[in-house]
């Protein structure tokens, strides 16, 4: 009887182990229940400042102190001290324009909730489909990405995006800023046709009709007073009062100007250009004059045209910075969102300082999203979104995240890759380096 019971316990333990190893993402961390101070690291504040031998204290999910370790006051004596000497501390990274939690396995349609059918879907909300149990999320956050702007795609007006924190039990827990942005895919002047050496760009004959449709819905939404019940028009109200940001994706120099001018004419208060590339740079003065921030087109792409500058994608962030335009980065390949820090680092040899590069994935996205009072830097009073890395976070050679906190909660950095790594390294008797 005794033995049997023991076996049952073992079986349960083993089952539990197997279950937690291969069928579940790690449990979200519990609320911060005591103060913590990280002592001794080089702190990259996100404002451009760097503090050597720093102390960063936080409690109740908020940052309580940022400064030199030797200036840490006595009021933090009760905090748990974590020695991070020799390491580097960063604000949690924010990924813009992401499909995290919506798109799981590219080739399997049943796992894709990122792109809705129809042309005009302003009322569609990304947050309700956000899957906190996506295997991609723990992989992403283990490289330092802690917040994501999750956006819907498809059609011309795609719907509403929300900012999610990347460690939560369910989408409501994950919500960090709800329905903050409306996504507009501006129609293309040109369509690509043909194959191989026959590939051509041809005028999109539907362009004028498509723009007319947009004109109509924007005009109708603007004067909408609640009747008849129309969830599409209702969902658009925020863009006129400034509570919702309009993110415009336009891919050609003329459509960039036309779309932004259109939005302004329609009375849209806050406009962001997404997918900003070589063409957006051609009209940087227009963007600057209109104070339009940009989300840079993913830099892991080829130069836009055959004649484009060989390094154009890599230097984008630096050129927008030179032009005085607020620019944030994204990573379009959702499953590899963990590479976000490296695309930021890639801007450094093209003219950004390392701290400016960091801002393209911290402070700049926070400003664009309107959450810079809570996130984006390591400053007193902000939410404690903190990443600790053994070395330079933005360089794959040195990025090794050992601790991460979201709202002060100590996030489990395990993920599917690490688990499979341990499983098979153990099988072969290899030394495990994680």
């Amino acid at each position, binding site marked *: 009887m005794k033995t049997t019971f023991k076996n049952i316990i073992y079986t349960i333990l083993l089952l539990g182990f197997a279950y937690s190893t291969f069928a579940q993402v790690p449990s979200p961390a519990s609320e911060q229940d005591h103060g913590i101070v990280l002592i001794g690291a080089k702190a990259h504040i996100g404002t451009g400042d760097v503090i050597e031998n720093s102390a960063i204290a936080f409690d109740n999910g908020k940052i309580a102190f940022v400064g030199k370790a030797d200036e840490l006051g006595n009021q933090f004596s009760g905090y748990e001290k974590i020695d991070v000497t020799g390491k580097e501390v960063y604000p949690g990274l924010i990924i813009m324009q992401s499909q995290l939690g919506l798109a799981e396995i590219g080739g399997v349609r049943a796992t894709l909730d990122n792109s809705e059918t129809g042309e005009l879907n302003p009322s569609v909300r990304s947050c309700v489909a956000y899957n906190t149990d996506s295997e991609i999320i723990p992989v992403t956050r283990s490289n330092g990405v802690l917040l994501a702007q999750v956006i819907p795609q498809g059609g011309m007006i795609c719907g509403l995006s929300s900012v999610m924190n990347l460690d939560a039990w369910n989408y409501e827990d994950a919500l960090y800023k709800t329905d903050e942005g409306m996504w507009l895919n501006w129609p293309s002047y040109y369509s690509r046709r043909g*194959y191989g050496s026959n590939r051509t760009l041809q005028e999109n004959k539907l362009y004028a009709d498509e723009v007319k449709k947009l004109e109509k819905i924007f005009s109708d939404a603007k004067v909408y007073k609640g009747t008849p019940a129309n969830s599409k028009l209702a969902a658009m109200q925020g863009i006129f009062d400034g509570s919702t940001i309009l993110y415009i994706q336009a891919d050609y120099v003329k459509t960039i100007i036309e779309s932004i001018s259109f939005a302004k004419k329609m009375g849209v208060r806050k406009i962001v250009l997404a997918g900003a590339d070589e063409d957006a740079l051609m009209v940087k003065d227009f963007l600057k004059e209109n104070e339009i921030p940009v989300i840079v087109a993913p830099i892991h792409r080829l130069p836009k*045209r055959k004649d484009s500058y060989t390094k154009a994608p890599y230097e984008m962030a630096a050129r927008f910075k030179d032009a005085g335009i607020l620019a944030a980065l994204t990573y379009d390949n959702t499953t*590899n969102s963990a590479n976000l820090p*490296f695309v930021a680092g890639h801007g*450094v040899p093209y003219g950004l300082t390392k701290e400016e590069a960091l801002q393209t994935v911290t402070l700049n996205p926070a400003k664009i999203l309107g959450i810079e009072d809570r996130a984006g830097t390591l400053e007193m009073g902000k939410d404690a979104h903190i990443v600790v890395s053994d070395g330079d976070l933005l360089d794959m050679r040195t*990025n090794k995240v050992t601790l991460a906190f979201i709202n002060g909660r100590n996030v489990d950095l395990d993920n599917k890759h690490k688990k499979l*790594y341990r499983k098979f390294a153990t099988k072969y008797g290899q030394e495990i380096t994680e």
Partner: protein
Amino acid sequence: MKKLYCLIVTIAFFTFTHAQNLSPVLGVGDERPEVYAFINATVVVDYQTEIEDAAMVIKKGKITGVGKNIVIPDNAVVFDLEGKYIYPSFVDLFTEYGIEKKSLGTSASRSYFSRQQVFDSKIDGPFYWNDAIKPYQSAIEEFHVNSKDAEDFRKAGFGAVVTQKNDGIMRGISALVALTDEDEEQVVLSGKVACGYSFDKGNSQMNYPGSLMGAFALIRQTFYDAEWYDSDSDKNVFDASLEAVTENKSLPSVFQVRDKINLLDVARLSDEFNIPFVMKGNGDEYQLLDEIVSTGAPLILPLNFPEAPDVDDPYKAILVPFEDLKHWELAPYNPGRLADKEVEFSFTTEGLKDKKQFRTNLLKAIKCGLSKRDALKALTETPVKLIGCENMLGSLEDGKLANFLVTSSEIFDPECIVYENWVQGRKYVITDSRLPDLKGEYTLALSNDEHFDLVIEGKPGSYSLKVKTEKDKTESGTISVSENLIYLSFPKDKKWVRLSGWMEDKAIEGTGVLPQGKNVTWEMTLEKAGKDKARKKKDEKLTEPGKVIYPFVAYGSEMKPQYKDFVIKNATVWTLEDEGIIENADVLVKNGKIAQFGKNINAGNVWEIDGTGMHITPGIIDEHSHMALSGTNEGSHAITSEVRMRDVLNPEDATIYRQLAGGVTCSHLLHGSANPIGGQSVLIKLRWGGNPEEMLVKNQVGFLKHALGENVKQSRMPTSERFPLTRMGVEQSIRDVYARAKEYQQKWEAYDALSEAEKLKTPAPRKDLQLDAIVDEFNEKSFMVCHTYVQSETNMIMRLAQEFDIIPHTLIHNTEGYKVADKMAEAGAAGSVFSDWWNYKYEVIDAIAYNAAIQSNEGVLVCINSDDAEMGRRLNQEAGKIVKYGGLSEIEAIKLVTLNPAKILHLDDRMGSIKVGKDADLVLWTDHPLSVYAMPSKTFVDGTVYYDKEKDKEMHNSIQEERSRIINKILAEGGGSKKGLGGSRSPMRVNDQFIYDDEDITDYTIDE
């Protein structure tokens, strides 16, 4: 190849008689003498002989005498051509004249998503298995005289054309036809002049070939099959196609190639099968002039120079690729440059929307350096010679066909008027020579004493009229003139004066009606004869065009990069050999090889590069790439080992330069992953600007692409009927072909073992290119490269290979390789993997970033590849991630993209590390090579700088300058603005960049 072409001339020797009407006489017979004499003309006998004040006599459609002192038969109708010229009329070798274009199978049905899979021939009969092979077709079977088209050809100066049914890859036999309106039996001069080849499947709906390389393979196999069919008396099949292939070999062959690079590849085919192809070119030959000259192939050139692109709006102009602008400027120079190199060529009207454009463009080509002599040769002697019909056409000699032009002056004079085009002794008037030349200023006197000043402009047949009706007021009128009659009218005070009359000698007079209805008489007096307006334009100075660049795309150079010995001083050198990493060290390169490295070496007097603060590594070798290819998949059949990536090597792909900018110096160009067995790959060095041959890695071993899993079983296609649809079937597909190849190998071994005497009695086995490729694997002439994802299939392919004594040489992607790393190590399989790509499809959900490290730690030879035009630009970073994911040492990590792929590709004897004697394929990095902060400062291939960070920026700027220069030229010639500003604008269509990927199986012939 050159010597082959003398064959053509001797092969075809036609006799012909002037077509006789064999129908019985109905009613009263009406046979005429049909003798004509043309006297006092300048007769251009051929492109190099001109006789002044000569006569020519023709009888029943043939020339019976040409020269100064010939007897004019007294039954001849005599034409006095005082001041006029006679030329042999032109011959076009590449037309579909008189052959009705049947609608082709809609190309849309060949797209990835809507295509129907067609594996069987749709043509019934004893024909070859593939219905794009139609060597049995004959143009005359479907030929019908088409008066309208014949007239257009005649107006452009042609008297005879070769017509061909342009349907299929092997198109069968063409016919030479005269451009008269008679019955077909009179018009056809020869029913068998040449046979045609192309890469266009035409009406065939079959999936195979689905790629250009597949078409190459099909042509090869068909030729081999025809040889076998011809020689094997024991064969138990009848095949009309193969019989035709053999018969057609006695005719000249015309191959319609796709572009200049394709032309070079067809020239290789020409050598392989000893068939001297005449190449129907595309007008881009000047871009690879030396290479094309050295093939020795005669060409048929179109004169369809590109229209000026729409460039006046700068935001639109950015869409026009650099090479299109360059080509716009340089295309008219093509014929002249080929002629200067003594390339034999003829012209065709093919590709022209309107045949009127032929003369315009011909004159443009002459303006751009083509001599008039060469122009005439290309229109007369060369085409005729290429089809062996020089006894019939091409010059004005006794016995030849009376196909000639009567012109007002030297024919390539822009002012020249072609009066008549005689075909087979039949006169066709182009411009009536009897029409008087009325250009000039006149005084018109009416019988009511009114006088007007008139100006007549234009050419006979199309005059315009201006009338001064009052002081300072000029009205446009209408004028119509025939040989003797004239009619003119013009408004005066918004009412019309209408005059009609006659011309006799110099007098022009008649009667007319005034607006009020009153009748008058009138006469016109010439005050001043008109001058030709266009003359002014003729002497316009041509501005020197831009230079040809190599390759002919952005970032190409006028000069190929020049090599010189050099030393890099004071850098951190990653040797990847026993010397490890040496700091503050030098690397000396001599004759393209690494000559010496170490601290403070004495380099002597060579170019010195300061490497302070920088790192040197061997060049990156990308084990899995699809760049520099025109197509990746023969996505039709499951087994396509017969296709060769070499056949579609494209050294002009911008990706090559972009990857040099990321430090790549050598790439393995693989077939895609559509089939259990794909095709034979090719290894290139990134010698940007080199021709296809120069790109090749010398003495390379072969690799054969295999693939397993989702792509092969077409699991993400909406419908598929192709076997296999499961991983079970995938194994069977490969096992089956291996078993057949074993048997085939034995058959050949048995045959090869026979004595010479026995061989004469024994038919050779049929050569099978598909099985040959697999036998090469058995013989280790080539090695297995297998695309695999999940562990079951990885395990399976290793076992299957071993069963057939093959090494499972390289397992690519191999995302679950970490699950069977011990088995891989045991089987001697190498892994070629991504660093961290995963979850983009179901079979990669267990892909992990630790894959490379686990395999490596287990003793597997591992490399990291790109399989991607973009990722290939930063493979150093991908290698850097493996330090993070799995803890590889930095040296082992950099080997993942240098020495390890070199070993996998059997190139480590010359590449992959910094070792004395190895190729100087080097990258000078601005920072630690595994760091995101590093980028190549210079990339060297064989010691030549192919990428330089500073020069890159300069080139970008000079591209902008050159673009701007050409755009200005377009605007100055009225090209761009015509469409751009206001009014009706033709829809814009510009070429755009296209990147082939691993999975793409779209049919290569699709154009929408």
